[in-house]
């Protein structure tokens, strides 16, 4: 049914339709509305049977999810930012143990300096923790990806992270088609665990493994993600048949057929990029966009096939790998090994800085003229940066960067409000 819902509410309803048996969560912006909504659905009995566990931390949230999933219960949690970092050790345990937990990451920056706004630093920091990572472009896709994620996770017995842009999606109210319970039941069978703790038939899960077998066990997580490269498109095709919506999959191309320039990105910024692409197409510019929905596993072959014919690739990413530059870029470059083309990394939108069509127009014009620096920071105020560099040069005791820069930019720059 078509409804006008906040993204967080849409995701909460999608998760509830998947009949999780255990939900454990610790609130953190911008994830809070998702778990608040779920706690209400449990409290009112609309989601039953389900146990909602209020935990004392994100480490506990993931630990409870691991315990629940190991008993054969369908388990869900959600987090963001520092919360994701706080559960890192448990994240590796979930994937290493092959437990099909589904988790929403409401993408948010990581401090210091503390910042509650959106970027992809949190989930990107966990790209190698063994979880599948899917990135939603819209709230409809976020809703759809959660339904697909449970099936994917359980078919492979591996955990899945659904990443959606914090605030930009979680707090946006827009049209979503919420499926019926019978539709979701038909698409997602009850959880049939590959392993389950049962007091009547005791087994160990999580034994210590020495050098004689560690690599083999670890490899299996990789093998599952390679299987996911096949399974993700299959599930998306099944989903389309069942729900009538083309949602999910590994990658998404937009107006790329004859494109000379392709912009690669993840998540909600693809919408703004597509509108900009349309405006440039009207001017005759041969530009398109490539959205990467599945960042883990990374679809090397598909990305290569999508990009190998173009003259230049602009990878626009919402995270900065300090000391080298782009994270998505490194993966795209690997897909393009041996192919000579112009490649640009653009770091954009860190800590919630809006990515506007006006800025994208300027950026793409520079890219098309091949005037971009290999590593570009969209809308960076270099004067502010340079003044702090000067202060650092002038005195060993120049003080804290964040406070110096805040003093420099003044309260006016805090935004239009």
């Amino acid at each position, binding site marked *: 049914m078509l*409804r*006008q819902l*906040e993204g967080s509410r849409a995701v909460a309803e999608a998760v509830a339709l998947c009949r999780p048996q255990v939900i454990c969560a610790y609130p953190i912006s*911008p994830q809070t509305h998702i778990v608040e909504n779920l706690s209400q659905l449990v409290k009112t009995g609309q989601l039953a049977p389900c146990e909602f566990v209020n935990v004392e931390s994100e480490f506990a949230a993931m630990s409870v999810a691991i315990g629940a999933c190991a008993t054969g219960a369908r388990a869900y949690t959600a987090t963001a930012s520092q919360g994701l970092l706080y559960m890192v050790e448990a994240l590796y345990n979930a994937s290493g143990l092959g437990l099909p937990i589904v988790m929403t990451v409401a993408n948010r920056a990581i401090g210091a300096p503390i910042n*509650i*706004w*959106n970027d992809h630093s949190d989930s990107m920091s966990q790209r190698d923790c063994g979880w599948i990572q899917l990135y939603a472009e*819209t709230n409809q896709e976020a809703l759809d990806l959660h339904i697909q994620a449970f099936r994917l996770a359980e078919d492979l017995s591996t955990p899945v992270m659904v990443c959606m*842009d914090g*605030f*930009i999606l979680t*707090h*946006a*109210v*827009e*049209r979503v088609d919420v499926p019926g319970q019978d539709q979701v039941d038909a698409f997602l069978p009850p959880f049939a665990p590959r392993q389950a703790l049962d007091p009547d038939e005791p087994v160990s899960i999580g034994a210590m493994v020495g050098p004689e077998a560690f690599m083999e066990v670890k490899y299996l997580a990789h093998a599952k993600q390679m299987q996911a490269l096949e399974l993700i498109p299959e599930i998306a095709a099944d989903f389309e048949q069942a729900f009538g919506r083309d949602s999910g999959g590994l990658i998404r191309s937009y107006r790329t057929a004859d494109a000379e320039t392709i912009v690669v990105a993840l998540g*909600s*910024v*693809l*919408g*703004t990029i*597509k*509108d900009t692409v349309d405006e440039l197409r009207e001017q005759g510019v041969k530009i398109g966009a490539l959205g990467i929905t599945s960042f883990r596993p990374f679809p090397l072959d598909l990305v290569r096939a999508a990009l190998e014919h173009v003259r230049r690739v602009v990878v626009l990413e919402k995270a900065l790998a300090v000391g080298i530059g782009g994270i998505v870029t490194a993966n795209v470059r690997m897909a393009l090994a041996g192919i000579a083309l112009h490649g640009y990394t653009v770091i954009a939108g860190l800590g*919630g800085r*809006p*990515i*506007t*069509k006006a800025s994208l127009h300027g950026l793409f014009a520079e890219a098309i003229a091949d005037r971009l620096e290999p590593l570009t920071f969209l809308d960076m105020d270099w004067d502010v940066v340079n003044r702090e560099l000067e202060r650092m040069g002038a005195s060993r005791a120049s003080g804290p960067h964040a406070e110096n820069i805040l003093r420099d930019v003044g309260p006016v720059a805090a*935004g*239009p*409000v």
Partner: protein
Amino acid sequence: MFQVRIHGRGGQGVVTAAEMLSVAAFNEGRHSQAFPSFGSERMGAPVVSFCRIDDREIRVREPVMEPDALIIQDPTLLHQVDVFGGLRPDGFILINTAKSFDELGLGEFVADFRHERMLTVPAGELAREHTGRPVANGALLGGFAALSGLISLDAVAGAIRERFSGTVGEGNVAAAQAAHAWVAAEMRELSGAASA
């Protein structure tokens, strides 16, 4: 695409106003996207919310920088915050106040815009009358429906009732109706003055 920016203070229902406006548009079969200015909102701090309305899917995710309409819930913001920033020359302004633009010291500013699209409505007082509280967001949407013609009063009433049940909802609907009537009368007066 029609873009609305709503200015108010934390606790005045600024985010809820954008949400209800988007629901009203949705209920009329249109695409709409409402979202807050993303910040650590506090009671009393300046807050901004946005609503886009279109007949096709809305993909853009940037803040509304060149609004077609401004709804200002708290006139004390007028001289603190650049509430008019980016307003399109043919844009609409609706301010929650019993004062006129001249009395607000905005007479000169408004001269650059289409004066029949610049109105004030005592939405807070109307809300107090009908709900017992001066929370103006619902009433302002009623006034905005009259001013812009973008959505119907019925759609606004439906959106308010979806958000608030019982007496709170009905009180806000009554306030929206009163504000709608107020703005409609003001517009008639203006067009009468123009044709006279």
